[in-house]
């Protein structure tokens, strides 16, 4: 009798181990896939930026610095991205810088009504908003999935299987440098600086 109970217990434990292992593997793959999605969206953004800059360049001679910052941030981001997914920290930093530069450009565009009046710019603004949203949502999905993966592998019964399933903590994509996002104040009153 007790042998039967033991056997049943064993079967239950084995089934649980299999389920936990498979659960971790599935979450790991989801996390990797979510990371790939960020990559796709970042590439899209890098491709879009040259067009954007060309479209506003003519009308924005007076905001050379802002445009320069965008172009530089973009090139920097492209370079870092070529390094591959191992350099998550650098990539996320470069992309955050680019986000900051782009949002400054958006604010600048807002500020020039004659620029905004062109239908072209309206479309570009929509495209830029959408691109930024796509990057943000891809990141959000990655962070959500990675958090879920991290929690799962640390929580008690599953943590016993974690080492065996080669589960490692996935790094989250963090938004740093809030200062980058602060909108610069532009003085248009032409007063001499004191």
């Amino acid at each position, binding site marked *: 009798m007790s042998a039967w109970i033991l056997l049943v217990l064993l079967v239950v434990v084995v089934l649980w181990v299999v389920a936990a292992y498979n659960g971790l593997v599935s979450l790991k793959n989801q996390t990797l896939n979510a990371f790939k999605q960020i990559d796709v969206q970042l590439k899209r953004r890098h491709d879009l930026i040259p067009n954007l800059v060309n479209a506003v360049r003519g009308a924005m001679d007076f905001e050379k610095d802002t445009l320069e910052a965008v172009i530089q941030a973009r090139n920097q981001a492209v370079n870092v991205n070529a390094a591959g997914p191992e350099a998550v920290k650098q990539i996320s930093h470069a992309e955050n810088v680019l986000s900051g530069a782009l949002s400054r450009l958006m604010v600048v565009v807002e500020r020039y009504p004659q620029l905004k009046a062109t239908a072209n710019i309206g*479309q570009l603004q929509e495209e830029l908003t*959408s691109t930024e949203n*796509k990057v943000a*949502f*891809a990141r959000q999905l990655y962070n*959500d999935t990675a958090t879920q993966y991290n929690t799962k592998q640390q929580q008690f019964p599953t943590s016993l299987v974690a080492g065996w399933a080669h589960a490692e903590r996935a790094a989250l994509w963090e938004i740093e440098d809030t200062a980058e996002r602060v909108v610069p104040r532009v003085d248009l009153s032409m007063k001499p600086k004191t």
Partner: protein
Amino acid sequence: VTEETALTLFQQQDANRRRTVWLILCFVLFFAWLGFGGDYIYALSTAHAPPAQQHHVWWFGFVMLGIGGVLAWYAYRTGPEKVLWATGAEEVIEPADAREKQLVNVVEEMAIAAGVPRPRIWIVPDPDPNAFATGNAPEHAHVAVTRGLIDLCDRDELQAVIGHELGHVKNLDVRLMTTLAALVGAVLLIRNGTSRIFASGRNGDGRGRRSNLGPLAGILLVVWILSWILAPLIAQLLAVAVSRKREYLADAMGAQFTRNPLALARALEKIEASGAPTTRLRSGAAHMCIADPLGSRLGRQDGRLADVLATHPPMAKRIAILKGMGYAQLKREGGAIP
């Protein structure tokens, strides 16, 4: 929050898969009952007659079973197309203007947030704001919005509505709801057809064959006819029961995708304020929409009758829940409550 919703997501998907299978099984069994039951009643009613006049149409049950199976398969396979066709929706392939471009962008954004492939996008030419999603799997999903919704909502609100719809797509609500809509449609269609046959049959030779029905056959006959009559009603009650709780869940999922519950609350308020019926979305697909397209006043109150009969939960309750989420979020992030 994400941990819990993610855990229940798989359960939701499983439950929806299971329920779809059950629904199709019940549909096929219903046809089997009509076939074999009808044949049995026919045989019973002639049992007292001399052997030469006894009737036992043995193949009738199998034919009905076959018809039921083929219908269910057809409804499942073509359900999404049929639903879209019934609403007169037009697919957005090349966005025609800035607003349509924005719609496409918003759908792409939400597909990324939900982690599902980009669904096909349709616009229903109807001035009343509403939206629905259909499809059998996230890989073959469709999202449809009315022209009125595009005109009424700003970018954030449109995003929130699409987020809600993709919530339905992700947890496989769409499979169950679409199959249900297609089956309800099939039952209604058959009922309309057969009631005509019954009517003409009664005028014809109905009186000539007043055979001596036994009490068992009599009862069975009544049940048999009742199931013909009640089937559409049962199907619609099923649609009601199946869809209400899902709206809260899809609201929550939409809010999780956009991280902006207040936008969905605003969108729902706007949709509610323009409470005209969405004429393009008929009763068959009512349970699929974000807001009750029939414009019934039942949605406004929270009584027991409303709870039983409405396809959608009371709008006020949904908005209140979303606002609660939104304010909690604002409080965490230290923003000002509007």
